């Protein structure tokens, strides 16, 4: 296929494209716009959805306890969100790191020492994909509270996320490790490297793209997850999704502030999407489309 030549299309085709882009980005753009809006403007019908005098007040309210200055309009600084942001970052980063290290080692062993076929692993991955977080809610709550004593702690939720993501990570990394030429590893062995050295110094650098894809998927799940975080975490260890849900169940919703919060939660996944869309699509299509 010659990809260099682009065909000429009729205008209706471009109209369709524009409509699609507007439809998929519209809600996100609206949220972004609203997060820069004063509440007066949000409730004023004469103010347009996208053209108004922007303000960063909502963000100042949300982030008041992590800012280096004291915003003038904030009478009482609610530290909930700033704290939750820290918790979310910590939990997502640690569980991503842990999943990658553990998953990488397991995937390597499965490929190189021929334990189980890829069939068994993809079966487990598929089975795992099937288990809804809602199903894990009751047992995880019971066990973590009464047996492991890990409720309310970061460690407890990190353990859950690691376990939830491991099958997928092992599965996707396997497909990358299979492509590492065995000759490279043999050469390293000749030079006297032990299996651990070979793994860290030969294999890991080659499978970086796979690691990136796996990292994005794990981070996203840990960062976005609500249900289990809600059940397991206490007041001071809560993550951002939990604080968002807590503030919308109240009678009066402060739209400007909550949109700013939502935007802050959405920013990391959006950045990842633009930085590594190719890897994301690979991860997404793996399994359904062979290739």
């Amino acid at each position, binding site marked *: 296929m010659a990809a260099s030549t682009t065909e000429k299309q009729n205008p209706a085709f471009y109209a369709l494209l524009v409509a699609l882009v507007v439809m998929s980005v519209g809600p996100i753009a609206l*949220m972004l716009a609203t997060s820069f809006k004063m509440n007066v403007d949000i409730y004023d019908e004469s103010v347009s959805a996208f053209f108004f005098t922007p303000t960063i007040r909502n963000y100042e309210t949300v982030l008041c306890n992590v800012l280096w200055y004291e915003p003038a309009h904030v009478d009482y600084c609610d530290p909930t969100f700033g704290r939750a942001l820290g918790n979310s970052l910590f939990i997502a980063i640690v569980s991503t790191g842990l999943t990658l290290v553990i998953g990488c*080692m397991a995937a390597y062993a499965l490929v190189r020492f021929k334990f189980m076929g890829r069939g068994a692993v993809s079966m487990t991955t598929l*089975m795992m994909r099937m288990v809804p977080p*809602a199903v894990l809610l009751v047992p995880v709550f*019971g066990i973590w509270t009464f047996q492991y004593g890990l409720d309310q702690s970061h460690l407890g939720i990190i353990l859950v996320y690691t*376990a939830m993501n491991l099958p997928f990570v092992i599965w996707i990394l396997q497909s990358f490790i299979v492509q590492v030429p065995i000759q490279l590893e043999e050469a390293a062995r000749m030079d006297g490297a032990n299996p651990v050295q070979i793994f860290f110094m030969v294999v890991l650098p080659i499978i970086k793209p796979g690691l990136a894809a796996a990292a994005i998927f794990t981070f996203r799940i840990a960062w976005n997850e609500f249900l289990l975080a809600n059940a397991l975490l206490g007041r001071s260890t809560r993550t951002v999704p939990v604080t968002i849900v807590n503030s919308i169940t109240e009678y009066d919703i402060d739209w400007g502030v909550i949109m700013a919060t939502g935007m802050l939660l959405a920013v990391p996944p959006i950045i990842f999407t*633009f930085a590594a869309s190719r890897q994301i699509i690979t991860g997404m299509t793996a399994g359904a*489309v062979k*290739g």
Partner: protein
Amino acid sequence: MSAVARANRLTPYMFLAPAAVVLVFALLYPIGYMVYASFLDWSPSQRIGQADFIGLRNYANLLTDAAFLESFWVTIKFAAVVVTLEMVIGVGLALLLDRNIRGMSLLRTIFILPMMIAPIVVGLMWRYMYHPTVGIFNRTIKNLGFETGIPWLSDSTWSFIAVVIADVWQWTPFIFILALAAMQSLPRSALEAAEIDGATEWQKVIMIKIPLMMPVLIVTLLLRLIDAFKVLEVIMVLTNGGPGLSTEIVALRIFRTAQEFQELGEAAAMSNLLLLMLMALTIGMFMYTKIQEARTARMLKAAQQEDE
């Protein structure tokens, strides 16, 4: 045998051990525990040892519980509607956009945004847009001169539609991307042969593209169906199952049974039923792929024999 050789032989187990430990303690054990808990009369303040064993009573209660049956029905209805719409729109768009255009990769990047953002935030965005007074939909309707807006989230029919729209917005791109990938890996020869035979665009789509894409489409459909049963956060933020039970899908009901009604045993029984249903779907999907593979292998073999 030297110590080095023994260490080398143990390496694979060393590499696998952490993953095995985590999976056993944090995944297999909880799931087994849940199966056991579904036979208990259990409230969150009790340790599991103190809960009474009540056999199948939780399940019996569920099957006679009108509210649970209602939410079961809502789940099926939701999954069916959503997956059908997404398949039709997603595959349709893939057929339309399967052309050599500049900026296709940017377009795909934009399309995956809705899937990457937290479901909680997706719910939030749509709740704002559906808002009776400040929401963009009702404002537009009023600006067009209509007196009353649509009761998006307060009427049981409309709230179901609202939830479906949000899900279609979020997940159609998934189908689109998979369908497009499948389409671009179709053998050119079949399409060229059809062109030489004078097939119209429609005939090519119906008689060649769709049938050849079928295996991928079916796997996509099943993946999406499994995910549709798991949707929870978006609906929770949008309607919290209401008004009445009109949008209360099973996953949401499990959450509320555990959180609000504090009936852990019953929630576990529901979880089990949901899990069984999803397992049936997954096994169906697995069988389908296996059958497909066997068929392709057979056909390849037959083709080779013909050549000889």
